[in-house]
């Protein structure tokens, strides 16, 4: 394992300045992915710049809408007194994220920036239409989370940018959402995962948001399924069609966890089951 220096700046400005000064330096959040990549020899940073001691990046603020600091740990999300009522789908996903030792240090910002197609917090944030705020020396910008993911391990974040906040609109009272994840055991990385959000007006679907994990190079919005559902009465035929479209439009790979074919099947079944579950609520 390589040697590297480790810095713990106390402000965003200091972190950005340090990164600017040290070639080959990498930002580190909870470290549960970065440290593994170093052990595996996938990356060899000259220095790690820890974001964990920067107060601007921690905490959850509610003021109608909600702002989650990127260094909020998965455990802090789960234990927050209000989040599970306001955004239950996000907390359901957080509860399925790894095991306790990882949840106690892994952060929501790190989960997104690691940009694995299976990131558990990504699909709920996609269906909640979350935004992320990014900060660099030049300034800050806000983008929809959907535009954040570019490819496996690749985000629209430049190497000198820091994800500072996750921003959520106030929850819509009529919206119901569900998160489902297929893993061999509870703490597994997802073989496939699905988040569904529906706003119903009697039997008609007013708004639909669906996202799937581990079935494409990035956590994926299932826009075609959303279009299929919106403005329509959700019949059994429509559910079958939603299942088919989901299986067809994703582009999973075969790897150590599952085959492409299995992932296509699972995502279709979970989309159908997720919608059915919400209609029963």
């Amino acid at each position, binding site marked *: *394992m*390589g*040697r*590297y*220096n*480790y*810095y*713990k700046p106390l402000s965003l400005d200091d972190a950005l300045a340090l990164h600017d000064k040290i070639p080959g330096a990498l930002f*580190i959040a909870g*470290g*549960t992915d970065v*440290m*593994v990549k170093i*052990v*595996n020899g996938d990356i060899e940073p000259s*220095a*790690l710049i*820890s974001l*964990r001691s920067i107060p601007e990046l921690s905490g959850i603020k509610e003021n109608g809408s909600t702002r989650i600091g990127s260094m909020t740990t998965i*455990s802090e999300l789960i234990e927050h007194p209000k989040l599970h009522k306001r955004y239950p789908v996000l907390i359901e996903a957080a509860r399925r994220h*790894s*095991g*306790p*030792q*990882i949840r*106690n*240090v892994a952060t929501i910002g790190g989960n997104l920036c690691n940009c694995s197609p299976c990131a558990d917090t990504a699909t709920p944030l996609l269906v909640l239409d979350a935004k992320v705020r990014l900060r660099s020396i030049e300034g800050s910008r806000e983008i929809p989370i959907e535009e954040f993911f570019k490819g496996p391990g690749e985000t629209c974040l430049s190497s000198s940018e820091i994800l500072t906040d996750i921003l959520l609109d106030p929850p819509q009272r009529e919206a119901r959402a569900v998160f489902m994840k297929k893993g061999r*055991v*509870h*703490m597994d990385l997802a073989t496939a995962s699905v988040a569904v959000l529906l706003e119903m007006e009697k039997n008609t679907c007013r708004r639909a948001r669906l996202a799937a994990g581990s079935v494409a190079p990035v956590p994926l919005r299932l826009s075609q399924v959303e279009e299929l559902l919106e403005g329509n009465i959700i019949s059994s035929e429509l559910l079958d069609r939603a299942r088919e479209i989901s299986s067809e439009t994703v582009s999973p790979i075969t790897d150590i966890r599952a085959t492409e074919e299995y992932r296509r099947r699972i995502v279709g079944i979970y989309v159908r089951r997720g919608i059915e579950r919400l209609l029963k609520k």
Partner: protein
Amino acid sequence: MRINISFMLNGSEVVVEVEGHHRLIDVLRDQLGLTGTKEGCGKGECGACSVLVDGRAVNACLYPALEAEGRSVTTIEGLRGPNNELSTVQQAFVDQGAIQCGFCTPGMIMSAKALLDSNPDPTEEEIRSALLGNLCRCTGYVQIVEAVRQAAVQLRDKP
């Protein structure tokens, strides 16, 4: 770059000189000689290296040593009593035969302690979720769950 850090270790303050690439487990085992904490996979999968940082279970193999500065770290060595007697959780593991080769045991016990400190009366499901990040390759989970249950009862009954 060598840096002095201080933190509370099993109730006493320690000062150690560490380098940026050192992990908490390196400091505990190699510098401080506390070899009760085991390194299994080194990748946060097996939980053999579990220790408590500010009361929460973490994998010491993924925890940068410099992040321990100013925090309170508890290892398996910190559980024994003043006369070297086993703690309630440790004794429960012995009583229930929850140990085979013993390699996973310190990590299991630290996760169990983190659970019981925050939830004195856990259900079986809660015990199993608290131990999700700890793997036992000898397959003794039933006895381990029984041991945590026994410890919970005994700790609740303690005056």
